[in-house]
């Protein structure tokens, strides 16, 4: 029973984190949300008797993918709307001039 409650709570957190990372406009927090999804997924894989997949998910999903996205954000922009706004403004300025 305790395990069931734990699993349901984990599943709720997983779905919440997934929705959070889609809705979030700050890309850094969105990436951290996907990291949380991977963390809970790897626990689920372990409970469902797939330790191989759990190790892969833990190493690649939590560490490597998150870091690669963070590096990408550092080299581009952190705000989702800013990049689009910049381009629209540039286009408008060119049109006016």
């Amino acid at each position, binding site marked *: 029973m305790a395990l069931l409650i734990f699993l349901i709570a984990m599943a709720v957190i997983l779905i919440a984190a997934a929705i959070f990372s889609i809705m979030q406009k700050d890309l850094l927090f969105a990436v951290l949300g996907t990291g949380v999804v991977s963390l809970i997924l790897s626990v689920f894989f372990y409970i469902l008797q797939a*330790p*191989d997949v*759990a*190790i*892969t998910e833990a*190493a*690649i999903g939590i*560490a*490597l993918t998150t*870091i*690669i996205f963070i*590096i990408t954000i*550092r*080299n581009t922009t952190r705000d989702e709307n800013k990049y689009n706004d910049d381009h629209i403004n540039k286009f408008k300025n060119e049109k006016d001039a």
Partner: protein
Amino acid sequence: MLKKLIVFLLIGTLGYTLAVTFSSIPIGANRIGSLDNPETVAAYYLDKSPNDLKVANTITAVVVNFRGFDTLGEVSVLFLAATGLASILYRKEEEEEEEENKRHISHRLNLPSSSLVQTGAKILFPLILLLGIYVFIHGHLTPGGGFQGGAIIATGFLLMLVSYKGFKNNHKIMVWLESLAGLGFVGVGLYGLIRYGSFLQNTGWTGNLNDLVSGGLIPLIYIFVGIKVATELTNVLDILLNIKSRRK
């Protein structure tokens, strides 16, 4: 007109091939089965891997032995991805230094990490390396294998790259290790082809179940895969962390 004809021919060929393939698959039939039904694939694997191959971890036996050629394909996909990334993002050292002098900005971690992070990374780094090597050497005995161990080693290098500004990989050694590991995998496959008549054929000698040296060529292949994946992912992270900003 000719173009359209060729397109129609291609689509027709594709459709015919798919139709023939799918019509021969009994969709919906129970192909997984159980040990009671020895006609199925799963029963074959579950029976063969501990009894004939003497491999305790059935997943490893499937990935490296029964589906070894697929694993070679996966490794080459990873290699191509890393090569593509490197060819887009890598710049020569001199060019980088020149630009750095010009702009006086290095986008890689402008501030050094705190000493707490640095000390922790220094303590954890050898342990992570050891865990990764353990995972891929014991691939045929415990869960995990070459890909998992390689990814774990790459996270260890990532920790060092992030916490120490001056931490540099020796690119030459990495590239050599990667190439030798890839060649080793192919060499093992060719050995099977020459000696036993089919690519990646396992040796007849398999040892005892649960021994470290058992399962024929499986541990050897997984060591090659582990080294290859670790060096490739480390190189990818190194290149990504050293991107110079191209913004004005």
